[in-house]
């Protein structure tokens, strides 16, 4: 732990002389910058995807929670009596959170897309609808009881069809998280390999430095700092580009599908800002690991 702290301090301090001792690592350094940029860009998208999928799952779950309807089919005269019976039964059912008559206006609104705003519902033998919320009640048992006591009442929990979608959205979110880990993992792997390549290409430097009495920490320091800074810079650039690209994406509104709804709202903006520091830490650990390995193998 203490050495880690010392190394972090080493990375942040600017020992220009120790930096000069390692030659410009050229293409591997540029490769690191480039990789960090590309990966941060992708990570921002994956984060947005994850947030959107989470939001979608939440919406669908909300929808699921309150979209069962009870249809009470009865002659106009009996409708009111049967409706209040139905309400009474629902209120006794454990797991039903609320039950509420849907007013005539609401029924009209439901029909409006097909029949215009002016369907003369009053006096028509259309069923009375009751909105049922709560999702832990025993739907099958309720149906049996209704069949026995109120044959004209049909429970339609058509919200249930959304359940697989909620699951799918949940899995999509997990996928997004997995891809975030994958992206950082790939970045770590690439930076480790790049640092390894840089170190192996500089065996002569290491030999010379050892010959004149440099410690391993001194030699590693310059490589670690360089790669960590490159990764930080690259990730910052990539994150900026990613946020910019996402800001440019068309947003189609609430009902839109998960990807057309990609974007960050409010505190969501904080998440992608974590990408550069995480990239920095990943690069630090990766280079530290690579330099230990190479320096050890050259003992």
């Amino acid at each position, binding site marked *: 732990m203490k050495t880690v702290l010392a190394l972090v301090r080493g990375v942040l301090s600017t020992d220009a*002389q120790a930096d000069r001792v390692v030659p410009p690592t050229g293409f591997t350094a540029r490769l690191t910058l480039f990789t960090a940029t590309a990966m941060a860009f992708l990570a921002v998208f994956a984060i947005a995807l994850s947030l959107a999928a989470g939001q979608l799952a939440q919406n669908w779950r909300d929808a699921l929670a309150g979209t069962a309807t009870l249809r009470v089919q009865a002659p106009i005269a009996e409708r009111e009596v049967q409706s209040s019976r139905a309400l009474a039964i629902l209120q006794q059912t454990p797991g039903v959170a609320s039950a509420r008559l849907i007013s005539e206006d609401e029924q009209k609104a439901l029909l409006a897309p097909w029949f215009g705003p002016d369907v003369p519902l009053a006096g028509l033998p259309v069923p009375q609808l009751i909105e049922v919320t709560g999702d832990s009640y025993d739907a099958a048992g309720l149906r049996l009881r209704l069949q026995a006591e109120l044959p004209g009442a049909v429970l339609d929990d058509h919200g249930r069809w959304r359940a697989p979608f909620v699951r799918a959205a949940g899995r999509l979110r997990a996928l997004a998280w997995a891809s975030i880990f994958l992206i950082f993992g790939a970045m770590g792997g690439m930076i480790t390999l790049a640092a390894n390549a840089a170190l192996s290409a500089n065996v002569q430097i290491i030999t010379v430095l050892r*010959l*004149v009495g440099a410690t391993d920490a001194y030699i590693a320091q310059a490589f670690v700092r360089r790669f960590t800074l490159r990764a930080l810079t690259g990730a910052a650039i990539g994150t900026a580009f990613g946020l910019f690209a996402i800001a440019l994406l068309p947003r189609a509104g609430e009902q839109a599908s998960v990807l057309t709804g990609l974007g960050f709202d409010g505190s969501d903006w904080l998440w992608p800002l974590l990408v550069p520091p995480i990239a920095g830490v990943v690069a630090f650990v990766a280079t530290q690991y690579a330099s230990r390995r190479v320096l050890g193998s050259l003992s």
Partner: protein
Amino acid sequence: MIELDEVAYSYGGDALLTAMSLSLAPGSFHFLTGPSGSGKTTFLKLCYGALVPTEGQLRLFDTDIRDLNRDGIAHLRRRVGVVHQDCQFLDHLPVTENIALPLTVSGQSVAEHGGNLGELISWVGLGARAQALPPELSGGERQRVALARALIQSPDIVLADEPTGNVDWEMSQRLLRLLVELNRMGKTILIATHDLSLIRAAKAHVQARVLRISDQRLKLAGADL
């Protein structure tokens, strides 16, 4: 300074060096000879901890080399100036910075040794090439840079492997004089070379002993040169 007790070394296969016992006293001047491939470079590498004896004990500054980890060896090396046979440098740094490298690496201020540095560079005849990069140097110039780098930190011991293999006679005499002078200041010097005329010339200036590797053993060549 350097004590060997029944040291043996092999690169995995047959033994290359066996049963070497020796004690280099502070302030002594030694030459090491032997045919090509006899193990001169290997012997020097043992002396500065780049290789660890496969048998026996080697003590450097009264420390058993086996007891040291890499950092410990790094610190010991700051007291030993080494001229490698195939002179390697940091090819991206100019001659001056390469020569000052032992100071840089041990955290010493180069400015402090400024005078020393300039003097050393002109002594080895590189004044005009001080800002050149190592790949732009001639073979002999590289050897002189390597020697200067080995001497910049005023080490207690100087180990030089063929330090004059690529320079002309005058220059080799000049470099020899520098080493003799350091020896007079009390430094311990060990030079591996196959150049017998260099050894003969040195004997005129300094009490040098000549070691010879033959049949995998270290022998004192004495006055028989």
